[in-house]
């Protein structure tokens, strides 16, 4: 199978994946006890009002009718339906909460690359030396510090004690590049730190693996400097598996970093999903799950394609 056919096959596979996700997210949520109407009106929900609203929103029709109705509207009109109580249009809600999350995920992934890859190289080059231990220690520290704690510490230090960065909100870098980047710094550091630890470990181990390969020995035997061997011959190859890790984590970040979005008041899809869970806004929840799944599948696909492109040895079957 050629590269083109492989790409096509992977793209076509997204269809069944989304179908499965839509069925699960729609079904699981609809079957839960306690509906959106009860959640919306809390202790003040009386049975008549609940019944009336259920009817108004068509919640009392059979499952398959509601499912087909929902999917049909999404596929045909890109319409994710209406919410029970809020800002009514789910499509609009999804469209406004996606960009902040994409920016956050991308900048977080960038931070992880900028910290993780150099740290991984330093660590591998100085294998079992103090630099390696230090980098490993820092990586585990980064991995172990909970997001919410790091976020709050960063806010305290960089917004309150040394007020350089704003502590909350989101400004699109497309609209205002300076302010946009400033608001992204702290949240990106917060999400990037944990991932950079993973990236660092991956970079370290794959670089060590490459170092043990014969062509590196050959290069060294030719008398090339250590720096040249590392930079020119080893890193490039060691990057391949690292790219996958960054890609997967980017996809994971797109699912919304709920806690970070919450702390930094970023109006992203993670917070949207959380609020939807708490308020039982089924349409929002189903819509955001579907969109997250789609994004994850796309990022995954892009990563795999990139991987296959970078490493010509990979077979497509």
């Amino acid at each position, binding site marked *: 199978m050629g590269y083109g056919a492989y790409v096509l096959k992977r793209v076509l596979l997204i269809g069944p994946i989304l179908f499965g996700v839509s069925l699960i997210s729609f079904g699981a949520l609809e079957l*839960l*006890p*306690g*509906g*959106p109407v*009860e*959640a*919306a*009106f*809390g*202790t*003040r*929900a*009386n*049975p008549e*009002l609940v019944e*009336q*609203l259920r009817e*108004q929103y068509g919640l009392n029709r059979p499952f398959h009718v509601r499912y087909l109705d929902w999917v049909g509207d999404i596929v045909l009109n890109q319409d994710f339906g209406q919410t029970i*109580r*809020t*800002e*009514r249009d789910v499509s*609009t*809600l999804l469209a*406004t*909460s996606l960009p902040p999350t994409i920016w956050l995920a991308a900048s977080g992934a960038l931070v992880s690359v900028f910290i993780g890859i150099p740290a991984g190289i330093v660590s591998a080059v100085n294998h079992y030396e103090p630099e390696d231990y230090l980098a490993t220690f820092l990586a585990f520290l980064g991995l172990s510090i909970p997001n919410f704690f790091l976020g*709050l510490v960063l*806010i*305290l230090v960089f*917004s*309150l004690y040394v*007020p350089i960065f*704003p*502590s*909350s*909100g*989101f400004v699109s870098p497309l609209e205002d590049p300076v302010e946009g980047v400033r608001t992204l710094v702290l949240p990106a550091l917060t999400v990037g730190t944990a991932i950079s630890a993973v990236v660092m470990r991956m970079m370290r181990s794959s670089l060590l693996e490459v170092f043990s390969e014969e062509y590196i020995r050959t290069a060294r035997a030719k008398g090339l400097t250590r720096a040249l061997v590392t930079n020119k011959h080893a890193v490039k190859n060691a990057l391949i598996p690292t790219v996958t890790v960054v890609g997967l984590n980017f996809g994971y970040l797109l699912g919304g970093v709920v806690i970070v979005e*919450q*702390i*930094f*008041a970023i*109006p*992203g899809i993670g*917070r*949207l999903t959380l*609020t939807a869970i*708490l308020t*039982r806004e089924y349409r929002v929840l189903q819509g955001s799950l579907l969109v997250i799944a789609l994004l994850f599948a796309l990022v995954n696909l892009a990563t795999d394609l990139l991987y296959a492109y970078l490493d010509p040895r990979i077979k497509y079957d």
Partner: protein
Amino acid sequence: MSMARKTGGDEETGDRGVSRRTFVGAAGTTAATALAGCSGGDGTPTPTSGGGGGGGDGDDDSTPTADPAAAQRGGTLVAGMQSGLDGRDPHLVQAASTLRVLENIYGKLVEIDQDLKPVGQLATEWSVSDDDLTWTFQLREGVMFHPPESRELTAADVVYSFERLLNEDTGSPWRSNFTPIANVSADGDYTVVFEFDEPYAPFLFKLSSGGYILPEGADDASDYDIADQPVGTGPFVFDENVAQARTNVTAFEDYWGTDGDGNALPYLDEVEFQVIPEGQARLTNLQSGSIDWAVTVPPSQADSLEGSNSITLSNIPGTFYDYVGHNTTNAPLDDVRLRQAISWAISRESIVQGARFGYATPTQDPIPPASVWKDLISVDEPYSQDQARAESLREESDYDGEELTIQVGQQFPAQVNIAEIVQQQLGEVGITATVQPTDFGTMISNLNEGAYDLTIVGWSGFVDPDDMMYLQFHSGETFNQSNYSNEEVDELLEQGRQAAGDREERAAFYDDAIDIIAEEVPYTFLEFNDELAAWRNSVKNFTHISTGTPRFRDVWLEG
């Protein structure tokens, strides 16, 4: 910092006007001004100074004493909110966070003041017929609607708004507040008449919650969609909403209100309601100056603000209380002795400290501490923690060691905490219980279906005793999830609902009812939570009221 509030001391200020069959709102005469608890001589409901406020005793230290002459104009106040706008139609919305925004955009006939008394807003005065069946409201003249309506409010708008609220198709959660209305009609441009089949004493309070006035024909307007674009009469005009992020409102040039010197309100150019869900982050933003005012300071964090010289922390008794709900129809809690045992087993003080960090007030009844009703309605034999008594009652009862579940909304950590304290204290007197954190929506269904033993839940009160007691303890009422039924209580609550006369006379019915309720324990009342807000000292003239609703109409920013 807590507020020393005297209640029931307002006899002088004319609250007995009720018995004179004429209520006067916040307008016109000196007497009316005193009654409304406001000092603006021109009759605006603007609490511009401490004098005359707070029930007329003048010792209200939480009212910012500020001289309107010192007021500065302009600027944007940034308010930190817990959650984003949950809809824009005031008849459909019930989320507190959203109403806090809409309150600054929409007007209503009557609003609640600092003492939780109704005072006139769009109505200047009102009267009740001798048979208590007809209420006549005089509207303020010269009240303008926001663009694109940009016209004067008349009685027809009020009629339209109440017909809309009452229309089942509207689906308003506030509808039940107004169903006793038999007819609403306009008499000329500035008089609205409400007719009832039976006296409805809590009507004024009901008007203040949910009774927002929309322009006539709003639902059919061709140049705007009322569901997207609020068009009210309030001090601020809706400008923009970014979902989950912020809501911006700008000063309404034609707002009717003026300050004590006759200067136009509001002072601010703009208010930005910024959504910062996390409590600690809200406070950090306040400290760093990126917001000016913060709603709902988490009690666990409040201490960090005490003694700050740039930030004012205000804690006043709120209108939200927590209680243990007993399912009185299921064994073993159908045994009143077991319910009493539970009430004697619990230390309210330890809940105040353990779950609310001291920012709460223990209570024996559902009447908010700041309410003018508080001193009039009280339990004769209050509960306190008495483990010996609890144990002997438990032994007398039919309870034989079954495990009781305490259902609690899992997304409310403070209530889960309360449930755990209750569980432990019940254990100390030989009553076994398990805490069952449950999704709130699911839990509400369970409560409605009677599928529970005990529950820890709260009631965010409106302020009339009817709203605090009728719905919960009258037989067969929707919110009577304890399935409590007592004929005498029913009768007292009905009499209270109908006694549109003197406040003390009316309170007597509730005062009697609460003693029976305390004896029979459908609820074990725990504590009223403090209403905590904080603002930078540059925010001037903010009046913090128990309901937590911020009104920014007469607030200004210094500097």
